[in-house]
């Protein structure tokens, strides 16, 4: 990966380690969350803003659970010919339902998450991607979830 490692001070690290969940649902949540970190709400907000901009954070806010909202979610993979990789990546990424897409070093070399408003729509999107790319899409919806974690130590 080409991405640069960013510089963080102790307070930034505390924010990353302590605030991956539990951001308050209150009128002044930054002030409430900042108290435990020994800073004020404004400083917490400024630090989160800076870390979103410098890439230390990829997101800030509520993380929704697709299936519990009645939506569909799956992991899918394609075996893409190397010389057509960029073209196929472009086609796949055009689909709004494709949330994340990673290149991986395997014969199945493109792995992406599909999130849809309804469970039925997952199969439709897979068919549409197969038509658009001319390639077989392997569908691997979760059967069971053993852990989805919070545990990144900065």
């Amino acid at each position, binding site marked *: 990966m080409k991405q640069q490692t960013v510089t963080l001070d102790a307070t930034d690290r505390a924010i990353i380690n302590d605030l*991956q969940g539990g951001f308050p649902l209150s009128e002044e949540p930054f002030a409430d969350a900042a108290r435990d970190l020994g800073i004020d709400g404004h400083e917490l907000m400024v630090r989160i803003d800076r870390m979103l901009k410098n890439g230390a954070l990829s997101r800030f806010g509520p993380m929704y659970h697709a299936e519990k909202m009645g939506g569909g979610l799956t992991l899918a993979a394609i075996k893409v010919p190397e010389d057509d990789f960029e073209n196929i990546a472009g086609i796949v990424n055009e689909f709004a339902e494709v949330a994340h*897409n990673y290149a991986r070093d395997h014969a199945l070399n493109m792995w992406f998450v599909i999130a849809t408003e309804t469970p039925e729509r997952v199969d439709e999107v897979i068919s549409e991607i197969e038509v658009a790319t001319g390639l077989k899409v392997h569908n691997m919806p979760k059967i069971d979830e053993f*852990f989805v974690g919070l*545990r990144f130590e900065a």
Partner: protein
Amino acid sequence: MSMEDDVLSNAIIGLDETDRRIIKATQGGLGLSLRPYDAVALEVGSDTHDVIRRMKRMLHAGIIRRIGVVPNHYALGYTANGMTVWDVDDARIDELGHLIGALDFVSHCYHRPRNLPDWRYNLFCMVHGHDRAEAEAHADEIAAILGDAARNHEILFSTRILKKTGLRLVA
């Protein structure tokens, strides 16, 4: 399905139009102002207390998994992100999946279907390291726990992020 999923599927939480507007307003992130739920309330045509009450309900119901920061592990120096995949005896995958999911270096752990003949693996565990050797050492620890129950495994390292928008669940 886990027990938690069973309970919820028996009592699907009804989302009304205001809930869906709140999801739409916040699925891309929460705005950075000292009173961020005021802005959400304005956008969805409600008031701050109602937005907070509705989001608390969604949090308790598991519709919101959590609220907070999502670190970009690459930027934090975790550049070796391996999807370890295992061909595990179906009779033992529940028992073993819970053991592996409890390891502190595993960030996601799922049972997924095999896609034979191209894909024989049914247990997927994400491990993260500062380099590939560290991620591979984690895979070795998983292998030791799975023992004979795992017939084969591989680690698929990500070589590039092609897209990362976060989930867009409501259009």
